[in-house]
């Protein structure tokens, strides 16, 4: 985990992400109305709302891969458009789509993620990768093309990135869907470890969250 | 041949010159006309929206 650097021009030294007045129109409907919030180091934010309330849209905008009609997003006091690459190096996004290549095996998919994560990060060797896959009960299928895996297994492959890549901000879109109890507990303990190290998490989920020693802030979309 | 006839005769090229000017006229007028029609309909939409809003506010 890299040290959190002091932020200039920012009201709070702990403030990582600041969201100002995000609005999104879908045709005639105002999907997100003037949404503002800030996220500090060590905070967990759960975005709640019914289907179609704009949760995925919001997360994509926060990551800089969605368009808002209005509003500003700052990472460590700088607009995310201006310092996109630096922001993305500190960001880990698990999207609505798993982001896993069906033609490649779990091992190959994760190797690519680790390589692309950059030189500053400790490169995971195959033993580490296999260890993580073992923890997620994926060892027997580690060499199989991912399209043969079940939805829950594919989800776990992408979740393996949580321990393989280092990032300050996790943005997780429905990370708990199609997971069993063990998977759920695994994700929750990873989140609490991440938060303990000063990282932040924004996630959407329908299930209630139980994370030891962590207060989960809620953002309700309607 | 009177001067006017000569003018319309265009030295034998009438069938090329006049259609050129005619089609130009059509395209230019269509440009102006269409843009004005579209502006009208945009205004009409804006009006409808105002009326709908007014109805919503005091039914």
């Amino acid at each position, binding site marked *: 985990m890299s040290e959190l650097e002091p932020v200039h021009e920012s009201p709070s030294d702990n403030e990582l992400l600041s969201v100002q007045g995000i609005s999104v*129109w879908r045709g005639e409907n105002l999907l997100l109305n003037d949404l503002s919030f800030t996220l500090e180091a060590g905070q967990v934010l759960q975005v709640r709302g019914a289907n179609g309330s704009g949760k995925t849209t919001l997360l994509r905008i926060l990551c800089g891969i969605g*368009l808002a*009609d209005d509003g500003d997003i700052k990472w460590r006091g700088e607009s995310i458009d201006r310092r996109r690459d630096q922001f993305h190096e500190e960001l880990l996004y698990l999207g609505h789509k798993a982001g896993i290549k069906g033609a490649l095996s779990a091992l190959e998919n994760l190797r690519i993620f680790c390589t692309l994560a950059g030189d500053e990060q400790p490169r995971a060797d195959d033993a580490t990768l296999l260890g993580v896959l073992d923890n997620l009960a994926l060892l027997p299928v580690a060499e199989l093309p991912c399209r043969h895996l079940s939805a829950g297994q594919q989800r776990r492959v992408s979740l393996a990135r949580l321990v393989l890549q280092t990032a300050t901000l996790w943005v997780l879109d429905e990370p708990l869907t199609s997971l069993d109890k063990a998977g759920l507990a695994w994700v929750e303990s990873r989140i609490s470890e991440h938060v303990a190290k000063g990282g932040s998490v924004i996630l959407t989920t329908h299930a209630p969250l139980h994370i030891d020693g962590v207060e989960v802030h809620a953002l309700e979309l309607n | 041949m009177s001067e006017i006839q000569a*003018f319309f005769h*265009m*030295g*034998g*090229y009438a069938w*090329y*010159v006049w*259609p*050129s*000017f005619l*089609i*130009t006229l059509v*395209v*230019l007028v*269509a*440009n*102006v006309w269409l*843009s*004005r029609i*579209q*502006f*009208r309909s*945009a*205004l*009409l*939409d*804006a*009006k409808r*929206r*105002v*009326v709908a*809003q*007014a109805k919503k506010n005091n039914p």
Partner: protein
Amino acid sequence: MFKWIHRFGSAPFVYRFAGALAPWIGFVCLAILLSGLYLGLIVAPEDYEQGESYRIIYVHVPAAILSMFVYVVMAVASAVFLIWRLKLADIVAQASAPIGASFTFLALATGSLWGKPMWGTWWIWDGRLTSELLLLFLYFGYMALRAAIEHPQSAAKAAAVLALVGVVNIPVIHYSVEWWSTLHQPATITKMGERNIHPSMGIPLGLMIVGFQLLYAYVLLIRMRTGILKRESRASWVAQLPEVNNTMANSKLSGTNRV
């Protein structure tokens, strides 16, 4: 400087300014076009090589010049939109595309009508005509892309990128086509532009070019107003416009809203 741009680039200001300017431009345009036509069709003498058929240049050349000019305007506006995120620039680009396409079509149609007496055939793969044809395809591509993308912001950005790619490619396409056409059929007929043009013919041509420019400006202003109205339809200033808000008093539309 930046504030200045935003002050005068603000939608209500441009909407009203364009509305006030358009009629004046329209009148001047009409006057110039009519005097250009008078000088070109009646006063100017016939050409010693091409006889009366040369008079087609008074519509062909302005249309051809404008077809290129409008694309350049579109590309510059697209660049301004992408760099400074000025939504108004995107409105200019969007409004220009159909006008430019219509001028390109006009250049092709009149070029073909001019070519028939000169070359004996309606269509010839001459360098300039072919370039115009490809330009028409570029306009079609721009409009088709805009129409295909549902998300309005994304459509605007994608179209802007396409316009820029198009404008850097136009010279390459143009010179390739010129080279290709001389390779296959050496030019036998000297074109009007390649020798000195007598003032009695040049002045009406200049007037027609200026007239076409003003017509473009006039239509552009109206289309910009339409574009602003559509995009700002949720803004309160639109609802407060007299031409929009007089619905209660006067529901008759045509009388009150002359452009």
